[in-house]
């Protein structure tokens, strides 16, 4: 029983309100031709998306200024745009990302979210079948926190929303900091600060201690980081 939104709702809404009138292209023929071909391309898109999902999200944030080369996937059945090249780097990285992509990687035909069972539930059960005991490593499901995952949570002081970042994509504090600046970019716009010098990077290691990244090498950091925080420099 929902909150009434106070909308004056027409009783027979679909009659006489056809936005196809405004649509510019003649869709009649296009649809029936498209229905078969696009159904297949849908599956292809799924295959690609399944492997590339998280990667393209991070890519979007890593190169916000690089809008001239759209990071689109090769839409295999769309021949209108020969300018979109297959980026060989994208294809290589599929294998990297499937390793990280615990949630979706189990199904043979690469369909995301199918069958429709909750991944957390699935992981908990599979953990038992694979290992036969509680508490062995299989990521979060069996009680070992993120031992195989390279995704780390990042929080910025004063920002209620935490994000996640894939550490395997970084090899230095510089790229990491740049990525984080972009990730929280929206908040900077609102608070009016965009100076990375105003923030210090801190992280929590395996022992639970909080350390500043400026005190350690990248190697030490990347091997033991569990969580990251961006703290205001005045501390």
């Amino acid at each position, binding site marked *: 029983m929902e909150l009434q*939104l106070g909308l004056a709702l027409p009783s027979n*809404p679909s009659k006489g309100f056809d936005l196809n009138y*405004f649509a510019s292209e003649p869709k009649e023929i296009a649809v029936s031709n*498209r*229905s078969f071909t*696009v159904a297949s391309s849908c599956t292809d898109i799924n295959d690609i998306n399944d492997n590339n999902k998280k990667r393209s999200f991070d890519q979007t944030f890593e190169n916000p200024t690089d809008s001239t080369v759209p990071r689109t996937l090769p839409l295999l059945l769309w021949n209108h745009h020969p300018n979109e090249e297959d980026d060989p780097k994208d294809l290589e990285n599929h294998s990297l990302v499937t390793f990280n992509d615990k949630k979706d990687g189990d199904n043979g035909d690469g369909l995301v*979210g199918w069958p429709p069972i909750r991944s957390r539930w699935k992981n908990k*059960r599979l953990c038992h079948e694979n290992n036969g005991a509680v508490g062995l490593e299989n990521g979060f499901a069996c009680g070992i926190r993120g031992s195989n995952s390279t995704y780390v949570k990042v929080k910025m002081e004063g920002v209620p929303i935490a994000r996640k970042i894939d550490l395997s994509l970084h090899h230095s504090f510089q790229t990491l900091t740049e990525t984080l600046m972009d990730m929280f970019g929206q908040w900077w716009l609102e608070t009016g600060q965009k100076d990375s010098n105003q923030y210090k990077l801190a992280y929590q290691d395996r022992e639970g201690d909080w350390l500043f990244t400026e005190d350690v090498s990248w190697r030490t950091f990347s091997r033991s980081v569990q969580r990251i925080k961006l703290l205001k420099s005045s501390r």
Partner: protein
Amino acid sequence: MPRMGYSFPEEVLEHVFSFIQSDEDRNAISEVCRSWHDIERWSRRRVFVGNCYAISPTMVIRRFPEVRSVKLKGKPHFADFNLVPEGWGGYVAPWISAMASAYPWLEEIRLKRMVITDESLELISKSFKNFKVLVLSSCEGFSTDGLAAIAANCRNLRELDLGESEVEDLSGHWLSRFPDNYTSMVSLNIACLGWEVSFSALERLVGRCPNLRTLRLNRAVPLDKLANLLCRAPQLVELGTGAYSSELRPDVFSNLSGAFSGCKELKSLSGFWDVVPGYLPAVYPICSKLKSLNLSYATIQSPELIKLVSQCQNLQRLWVLDYIEDAGLDALAASCKDLRELRVFPSDPFGQEPNVPLTEQGLVSVSEGCPKLQSVLYFCRQMSNAALMTIARNRPNMTRFRLCIIEPHTPDYLTLQPLDVGFGAIVEHCKDLRRLSLSGLLTDRVFEYIGTHAKKLEMLSVAFAGESDLGLHHILSGCDNLRKLEIRDCPFGDKALLANAAKLETMRSLWMSSCSVSFGACKLLGQKMPGLNVEVIDERGPPDLRPESCPIDKLYVYRTVSGPRFDMPGFVWTMAENPALRLS
């Protein structure tokens, strides 16, 4: 004729209204006249917002200033299956901050599929002096630190239910933050926690809360500690065990069995991770009283399941893995005549071949043997139109029917025909059907049946089905009570969507992913329908860098009175009248 409105003082009307709990009735009351509207809004104590982006917290607070209980839902249902990318939204923080100042007497917060942070949990724990109920169902974004704040500060807490949330486990000591003089827990559900909680704190907590009725433990609580807990809480009505495995030892077994026997009120059981079958008989003493049994984590085979289930004559709800097999479902149909709800989950969802003898026959048996069966969720690998028609005729009282044939596009295995007529029979016979999920090979015909017959349908889930826009058109133009429609991997394009644009304002939301909806159509929809947020979700990059006719990846359309939201991540665009708002 005297005008009735004058004769009753407000207090009397308010007293009368206090007996009206349902939102629908209260909404009706508020439309009678101005003064009833005012009295009603000051006396409304519960608010349910089915889509947190449909309205702003300010608007809710302005209309209902004295609310004590709030329920909010965030992400669309398909987020459960990883179809909604991380970071999409559903942040509860703005609601919590607004309510912290506006509703000092708030008692209950229930969230589903929302992102809640430790800061928000802390704010809750400090802002609401009489806070009693926190339910976080499939939520994320918080850690055990947030739970520690709740434990430490909420003196009147009665219910803490973490549902199936993802909690960052930093320490099991949060449970110790409940003060020693805290005794009011009634319901505690920590089943989703991956790490151990401090067991001694748990034991002491359970021991000092005499009103504890529901206790759902997490997997990390070992079986040999369960008896102890049960002895401290023999009044329990609902129990979720931890791991149900241990070396078979007679003393452990007899303690456990004795403890279960002592729980005379127990009506619901769940948990059962890692079951060692030798310990199952420990629960036999209480089986006959059980109304609800959740064995969806229990990897036990059919013979043990049959032994267990055959003793539960009063069972109303069973959730189980397909290890139960057709034979087990036959036994269920024979023993559990009061069964209302059945869910059968796949033990090997990604295997190509069936790993257990569970077919459509099991479901048919249950539909024959259980006259009160009204809610079904069934995963299987084969189905026939004949079986569906039998089920439909057996159970016209069905209200929720969700069938998942694991392989997409699977036809009737007997005739190799699509399953249109089978599902058609379901919607034709089950006139009160409110929720339906389709699967298998389906043409546009099934949608014609649904549009024609499923007049009470409120939620429909469609995957890998249909042939053309006609299918979608049948749904949108025929299902009068449709509130939620979620579609994936169907060849539905622009035509049906645009032709039925106004219908979308009568629904809570529409989700379409991996379909053929073009960017141009989304823009048009957003421009022409100011009462809708039309969100294009596409991790490939900005849709306006591709041609307008290009299909978008995911579409989420929902009605709203508060306009486009401002917390969208980089891969979500709202199509709006003002083009500047389109770019995030």
